[in-house]
C-alpha cells in the first residue's frame, strides 16, 4: 500500500495545474484578508470574530478549489486512459482509490492549515497596525474550533469530490457537480421538499449544513450542530466514495 501511496503522491506533484490550484487555494483567503485589512474604513471596529468569519468563509472557496483538484486528479485518468496503466500496475482497484483519498486527505490538511493561519496572520497584522485589537484568545471567539471544523469540512469535501469523480468519470461534469451541489442542487432539493411540506428541509442538506456549521456564529435551531453536520456530511461523502469504488470494481477499465 505504501508503494501505491508513493505513486499517487508522484502523480499529484508532477502535474502543473495541480500546483496552480493549490497556490490559488492558499493565496485567495490571504489576499482577501489583506484587502479587508487594508481598505476597511473602520478597522478599529473589526473584531476577532469578524476576521475568523472572513477567513473561514473565504476558506470554503479554497476547499472547493482543492476539491476540483481531487476530481481532476481522478477523472483525468479516465480521459487520458492512464487509469488502464494504473490498474495494470495495481490490479487491486480499491487500493488506488484508497491511496488517492489518503493523499487527498493529507494534502488537504496541510494546505488548509497553512491557508487558514496565513490568512489570519496577514489579516490580523494589517488590522492591528491600523488600530484594531485582534487576538487569538479573545473572549467568545472560537478560532480553534472554526479551524478544526474547516479542516474537517475540507477533508470531507475531498472525499465527496473523489466519490463523485469515481461515479461520473468525466472531468468537466464532475467539477461542475462538485461546485454546483451546495450552490444549486441542494437549494433546489430543499425548495422542492419545502414546497412538499417538509419542515426545516435545508437542515438536512448535508453539504450546506456542514458549511454553515463551520461558522463561528452560534448555530440556529434550523441548522445542525457542528459535529452532527460534519458526521452527517462525512457519512454521505463516504457513501459516495464507497459507491464510486464499487462501480469502479464492476466496470471495465
Amino acid at each position, binding site marked *: 500500500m505504501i508503494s501505491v501511496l508513493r*505513486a*499517487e503522491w508522484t502523480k499529484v506533484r*508532477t502535474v502543473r495545474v495541480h500546483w496552480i490550484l493549490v497556490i490559488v487555494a492558499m493565496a485567495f483567503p490571504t489576499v482577501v484578508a489583506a484587502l479587508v485589512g487594508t481598505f476597511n474604513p473602520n478597522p478599529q471596529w473589526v473584531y476577532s470574530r469578524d476576521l475568523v468569519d472572513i477567513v473561514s468563509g473565504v476558506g470554503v472557496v479554497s476547499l472547493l478549489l482543492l476539491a476540483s483538484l481531487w476530481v481532476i486528479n481522478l477523472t483525468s485518468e479516465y480521459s487520458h486512459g492512464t487509469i*488502464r496503466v*494504473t490498474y*495494470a500496475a*495495481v490490479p487491486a482497484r480499491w487500493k488506488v482509490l484508497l491511496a488517492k483519498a489518503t493523499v487527498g486527505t493529507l494534502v488537504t490538511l496541510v494546505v488548509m492549515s497553512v491557508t487558514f493561519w496565513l490568512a489570519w496572520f496577514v489579516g490580523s497584522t494589517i488590522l492591528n497596525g491600523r488600530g484594531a485589537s485582534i487576538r487569538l484568545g479573545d473572549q467568545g471567539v472560537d478560532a480553534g474550533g472554526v479551524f478544526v471544523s474547516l479542516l474537517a469540512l475540507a477533508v470531507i469535501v475531498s472525499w465527496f469530490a473523489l466519490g463523485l469523480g469515481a461515479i461520473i468519470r468525466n472531468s468537466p461534469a464532475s467539477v461542475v457537480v462538485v461546485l454546483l451541489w451546495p450552490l444549486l442542487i441542494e437549494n433546489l432539493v430543499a425548495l422542492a421538499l419545502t414546497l412538499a411540506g417538509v419542515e426545516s428541509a435545508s437542515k438536512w442538506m448535508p453539504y450546506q449544513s456542514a458549511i454553515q456549521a463551520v461558522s463561528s456564529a452560534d448555530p440556529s435551531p434550523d441548522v445542525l450542530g457542528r459535529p452532527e453536520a460534519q458526521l452527517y456530511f462525512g457519512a454521505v461523502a463516504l457513501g459516495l466514495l464507497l459507491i464510486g469504488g464499487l462501480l469502479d470494481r464492476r466496470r471495465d*477499465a
Partner: protein
Amino acid sequence: MIDVEGLTKRFGRHTAVDSLSFSVAEGRVTGFLGPNGSGKSTTMRCMVGLDHVDAGEVRFDGQHYGSLRRPLESVGLLLDASYVHPARSGRNHLRWLAASNGIGKQRVEEVLALVGLTDVASKRLKNYSLGMKQRLGLAAALLGDPATVILDEPANGLDPEGIRWIRDMLRFLASEGRAVLVSSHQLSEMSLMAQELVVIGRGRLIDQCSVHDFVRRNTTTRVRVRSPQVGEILRQMRTLGATGEYVGDSAVSDTALIAGVSMVTVGETAAKVGAVLHELSEVSESLEDAFLAVTADDQEYRSGNAS
C-alpha cells in the same frame, strides 16, 4: 509462459472474444494477428484484468494476473502509447509507475536510456511524437524487467529506423528467455519479427503455429517457368494434374506459373519434351497472402474496390 483458456468476453449481445485458448511460450516472439474488430485488444485487456471476463482464465507462469504482488515485475504491458497524462514529463510518467511497484528511480533512468529517450525525458508528454510515446510505452513495459511482455501495435507511428529497432529489441527480449506476445497489422514486419503466430477472427482462434507453417499451410507455392516452349510444358503439366496459367498475354507470353507440382517435376518434364528453360524458380506467397486467405470470412470491415 502465458496460458489462455476458454477466454470469453461479451459486450451486451456481442461476443467480442469467444472461448479463446492459446499459449505463448518463453524464448519466442509470438505474433497476435486478426482483422480489425477481431478481439485482439479486448483479449489483451482481459488478460491483465482491465476488462472483466465472462468465462475462462489466463495464467502467467501459473498465476492469475490479479494475484501478482508486483505485476510489473512479471508482465510488461503496452496497450496504447497514448495512455499518458500530457502535462507530465516522460520521466515522471515512468517514476509514478515504478513507484507503484516499488521499483527504484535508477531503473527509470536505465529504461529511458534503453529506449533512447534520456535527452527528452524532462519534456512534457504533449510534446512527444507518437513514435516517442511508443518508445516510452516500451520503457514502461520493461520497467520491472518482466518475464512476459505484451505489446499491442508497438510499431505504430515509428519510422523505419524505429521499426527496425523494435524488431531487434523484441527478438533480443525473446532471446533472453522471455515470452513476448505482440500484435501488429504490419504483416511484413510480423513475418520478420515473430516465430510463432496466434491468429484470431471474430474472437475465435483460427490457428496457432509457427510463421513458416502458417504460410505453408495457407498459401500455394507455385513454380515460375520461362521458356520458348512454355505452351508444351503447360500441356504436359496439366496431364499430371497440375494447374498453370500464362503470365500476361498467352499469345505472346513465354512465362507461366504452375501450381500443384514441385519445381523438380517441372524441370524434369521440360527436359523430357526438350524444352529450353530460361527461368525456373519457386514463387512463395507471403504472410499477408496467408493471413488474408485465412481471415477472408472473418473480416468485419471490408473495403470497396479501389479500381
